[in-house]
């Protein structure tokens, strides 16, 4: 994947999503298209992203690193910084736009698609990680821990400990 492709993927994924992991489905399809082992790459990036502070959407920085080193980080950062600039445009048009039923409807419909696409992608990631019973069990542990409000760092520490114990 060239730097331009990386920029384009990150930029588009952020432009049509609303932060968090909503950029994941687009990115996954772009990575698959570029011939990457997308699920492995995404899981590694998500693991690093979850360990770092800051919004969840920053897993893209780790992805940039894994794809192209430090230049990849720089490119991913620019791709992440550009879409929020649209807030300036929205601010100008808010009064008119917010009262337009079509605009509200489009936003809501778009969030429903993003959630559906994300459900699809995260199911694929879970399937990818569950190559054996241990992987499936760890996936279940991850779901439960995060839903119960545990820190991701705690979950990753549990995983490392379990992995070292079982594969001794």
């Amino acid at each position, binding site marked *: 994947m060239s730097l331009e492709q990386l920029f384009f993927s990150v930029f588009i994924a952020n432009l049509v999503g609303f932060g968090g992991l909503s950029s994941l489905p687009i990115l996954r399809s772009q990575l698959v298209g570029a011939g990457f082992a997308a699920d492995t790459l995404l899981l590694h990036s998500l693991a690093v992203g979850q360990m770092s502070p800051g919004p969840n959407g920053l897993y893209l920085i780790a992805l940039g690193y894994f794809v192209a080193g430090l230049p990849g980080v720089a490119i991913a950062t620019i791709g992440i910084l550009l879409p929020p600039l*649209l*807030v300036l445009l929205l601010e100008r048009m*808010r009064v008119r736009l917010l009262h337009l*039923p079509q605009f509200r409807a489009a936003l809501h419909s778009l*969030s*429903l698609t993003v*959630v559906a696409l*994300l459900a699809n992608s*995260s199911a694929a990631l879970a399937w990818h990680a569950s190559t054996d019973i241990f992987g499936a069990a*760890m996936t279940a542990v991850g779901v439960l821990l995060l839903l119960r409000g545990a820190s991701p760092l705690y979950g990753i520490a549990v995983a490392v400990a379990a992995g070292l114990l079982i594969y001794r």
Partner: protein
Amino acid sequence: MEFAYIGVTSFGGGSATVAAMRQLCLRRQWLSEREFVDTLVLSRLTPGISILAQALLIGRSVCGVAGMVAGPVGLLIPSITITIFLARLYEWIALMPSAEGALHAVTGVTAGFAVALSLQFMRDVLGRGRFRLNAGIFAAYLALSYVIRNPLVLMGLAIALAILAPQLFDEAKAAKDDATHREEASVES
């Protein structure tokens, strides 16, 4: 001014950052409570990572164009530095044969995190407006996502459907309630 922004960032992610930005804005009298809530609502509607959009708006009202750069950049610098460091460490550990089991476990847990975050997101979105209708549309989109492999095409369809039949996606009342709730919540905290 830029240093003050960077200070904000030492806090954790998500809502913790929003809370930290709010405190900073109020303490330094950059924005009033009302103005802060306005920036929050507006940046939630913006594509991309909403905290960055909010930092941009706050930065601008504090010191114009320089603030528009300093806000988001200051917010990102610590996270990016730590991310690069962790990614290097991760790469290095991944090369060790004895780490194979641990790595397998970490990918499992991370996939679980992704599922959990999707579930939380799903709960938020389906809860806006009429739940049954939302769930129906969600199911239809989910089914379509297995037929149409390009997510951008599906999103285009979703926007087209919303423009043709906005009444299907009417969440006007719910959104208004939501905004008032958010305002109340932030006044209380």
